[in-house]
């Protein structure tokens, strides 16, 4: 037995433990809405007993430390799903802009192709009419403009995505720098055995942010943390971060380079950079290729048909459109003639003949690109854009649901509950009061002992 003074020490330990509890709970409540915060709790332990003869008396409570409740496996899963989700979201955002360029109804390339062939049919009823001839040329010009506009806007969309690639690479660098700094701090703190839970929370939040931007693999052996891309390019190794850089190639497209100077653009798949790169380097170029082959196929077929005919002056027809081929064809499409008399509608050299309009009109039902008619090839483009976004949306919805579930799971471990903290506060408060009461009781008893001496 340690006597009355020993009892005071036990009560004092109780006061300290309950105070630690109160402080932790208060801290939890204060961080109720802090992103990335994991709730903490004091680790309380019984003090070593005092052995007196055959009896072991409890010696009160000791505060071992403060622990932070987090599930690092869930952190990893959330990081993985965030990469997926951000990638889908960025892809869908980029492609939604593209989608408006390929309407399926009364505007855009499809409608202009239709108007052009209609104008030919109108002309066939009165082939020498200059107004009708002019309207064929106007329709041909509008069709060219529609191809030009769509092609230019696709290029512009890619340029906007280039800008995003640059900005987001910079963000990646900022975050990896911060993570490396935190790694240094954590290494120092853990060697001195101090409480570093809040730095872990910060680092975990930064890794989630990073996962939103780029694909990330983590190697965490408990002491040091290494972050790489899925392709193994180092981003952070312990206290050292490795900056990525961007540079434009000859066509102006931004590529991403590792700190070692390797081009890693095509190896990135996750995070918003992954989605942006997928749209910029795969989906949009595929659309551009198909658009160009439609433009050049259509122009070639119409030019061939046009050359079979004779114009209003009886001369053989030349090119109706400027010949175009290969990449950039759609952007370069333009009508070659401006004089309606030069439209080769006839087949026998007379001004009243419409014999060649049938040849020109037949192009509407001819395979001009990838085995498809002009209108069919355009329909295919609409399908291509739509199905890309549609599957992106499906992936996004799945990722969102998955991510939400994971976040709920994480919150069930790490989230701060006001109910819980309220009951903890109540318990700590009561226990504190009780310990204080014990000190006061000992005090009274000591008073009795002192009075004993004074009174006799």
């Amino acid at each position: 037995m340690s006597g009355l003074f020993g009892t005071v020490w036990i009560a004092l330990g109780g006061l300290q433990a309950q105070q630690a509890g109160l402080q932790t709970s208060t801290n939890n409540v204060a961080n109720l809405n802090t992103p990335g915060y994991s709730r903490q709790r004091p680790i309380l332990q019984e003090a070593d007993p005092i052995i007196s003869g055959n009896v072991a008396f409890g010696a009160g409570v000791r505060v071992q430390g403060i622990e932070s409740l987090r599930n690092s496996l869930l952190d990893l899963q959330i990081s993985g799903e965030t990469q997926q989700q951000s990638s889908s979201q960025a892809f869908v955002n980029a492609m939604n802009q593209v989608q408006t360029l390929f309407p399926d109804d009364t505007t855009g390339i499809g409608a202009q192709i239709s108007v052009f062939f209609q104008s030919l049919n109108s002309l066939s009823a009165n082939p020498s009419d200059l107004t009708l001839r002019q309207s064929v040329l106007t329709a041909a010009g509008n069709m060219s403009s529609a191809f030009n506009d769509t092609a230019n806007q696709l290029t512009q969309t890619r340029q906007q995505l280039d800008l995003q690639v640059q900005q987001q690479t910079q963000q990646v660098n900022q975050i990896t720098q911060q993570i490396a700094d935190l790694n240094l701090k954590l290494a120092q703190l853990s060697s001195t055995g101090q409480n570093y839970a809040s730095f872990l929370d910060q680092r975990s939040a930064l890794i989630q942010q990073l996962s939103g931007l780029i694909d990330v693999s983590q190697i965490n052996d408990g002491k040091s943390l290494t972050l790489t891309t899925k392709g193994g390019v180092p981003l952070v190794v312990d206290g050292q971060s490795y900056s990525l850089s961007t540079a434009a190639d000859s066509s102006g497209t931004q590529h991403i380079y590792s700190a070692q100077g390797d081009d890693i653009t095509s190896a990135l798949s996750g995070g918003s950079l992954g989605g942006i790169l997928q749209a910029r380097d795969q989906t949009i170029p595929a659309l551009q290729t198909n658009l160009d082959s439609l433009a050049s196929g259509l122009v070639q077929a119409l030019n061939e048909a046009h050359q079979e005919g004779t114009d209003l002056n009886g001369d053989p027809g030349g090119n109706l459109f400027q010949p175009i081929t290969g990449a950039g064809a759609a952007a370069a499409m333009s009508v070659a003639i401006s004089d309606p008399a030069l439209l080769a509608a006839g087949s026998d050299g007379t001004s009243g003949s419409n014999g060649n309009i049938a040849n020109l009109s037949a192009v509407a039902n001819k395979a001009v690109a990838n085995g498809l008619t002009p209108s069919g090839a355009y329909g295919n483009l609409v399908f291509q854009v739509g199905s890309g976004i549609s599957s992106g949306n499906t992936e996004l919805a799945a990722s969102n649901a998955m991510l939400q579930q994971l976040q709920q799971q994480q919150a069930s471990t790490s989230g701060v509950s006001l109910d819980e903290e309220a009951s903890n506060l109540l318990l700590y408060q009561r226990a504190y009061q009780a310990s204080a009461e014990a000190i006061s009781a000992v005090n009274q008893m000591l008073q009795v002992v002192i009075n004993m001496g004074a009174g006799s």
Partner: protein
Amino acid sequence: MRISPTLTQVVLSALNISDQAEQTALQQMTTGRRVNQASDDPSAAASEVNIAYQMDTCDQYLRSISSLESEMQTADSSLNSAVTALQSAISLGVQGANGTLSQQNRATIAQQVDGISQQIMGVANLSYNGHYVFAGTASAQPPYVADPSVPGGIAYQGNDNVNSVQIETGQSVAANQPGSALFSAPGANVFQALSDLSAALRDPNATTDDIGDATTELRTAYDQLGEGRAFYGNTIDQLISVQGFLNSEQVQLSQQQNSTVGVDANVAATNLTNAEQARTATVQAAASLSGVSLMDYLSPTNV
């Protein structure tokens, strides 16, 4: 098991989903379309490109038919007047073959025959919308001109070519009948027959048989013109029938379009109501969640 204490995210995401559903339903309701962008249903959007193209083409065929029809009707009624004039020329020929007539009377009849020739030439040089209808494809010039060097005195300077106009997928019609098949067919030349009749009537040495022969020649030309004119009547009939077909095809295409990308108004309204209800329910649930925790019950008096 510990339950996740933060429901904000769940609520937000539920609100997001019901917002989206409401927006979609509202858009379907206001546009009447199920497919408002290609990603809503990519294959339906691609089909719509095709359907819209067919509908536009259908409209165009109908426009061409109506412009062709009015030209043909003009041609047909002009030819009708030429036929009537030829009939009276034949009557004049029969009248002129009457042996009791004086030479002076015949000369007067001959003048009337010349007048008819002029009148028919006017018909043969009919111009419509800036082109000559009976000139074949050489339609920039009047097809018939006075030319004393040819028999009959009127030369054809058009050609024998025929334009064709597409009026339906895979179907075209001839758009004109050249003068050479109507007025100046070999062996049935209207102008030569009229000129022969006029000459026979003026010739004091001509017998009534000669006049009768000229009238017979005129009858042959008359028959030829009548046959040629039938082309216009037949084509107009064909145009009208194709018009009817195209009109019903338009209806069919628009039904097809509606079933591909359209939305049933009742379905859209129900969707909207459902989405609105779901949203209201989520909002109400969210509102009832807010606030209350054990903290509220820990007042100083309780402690």
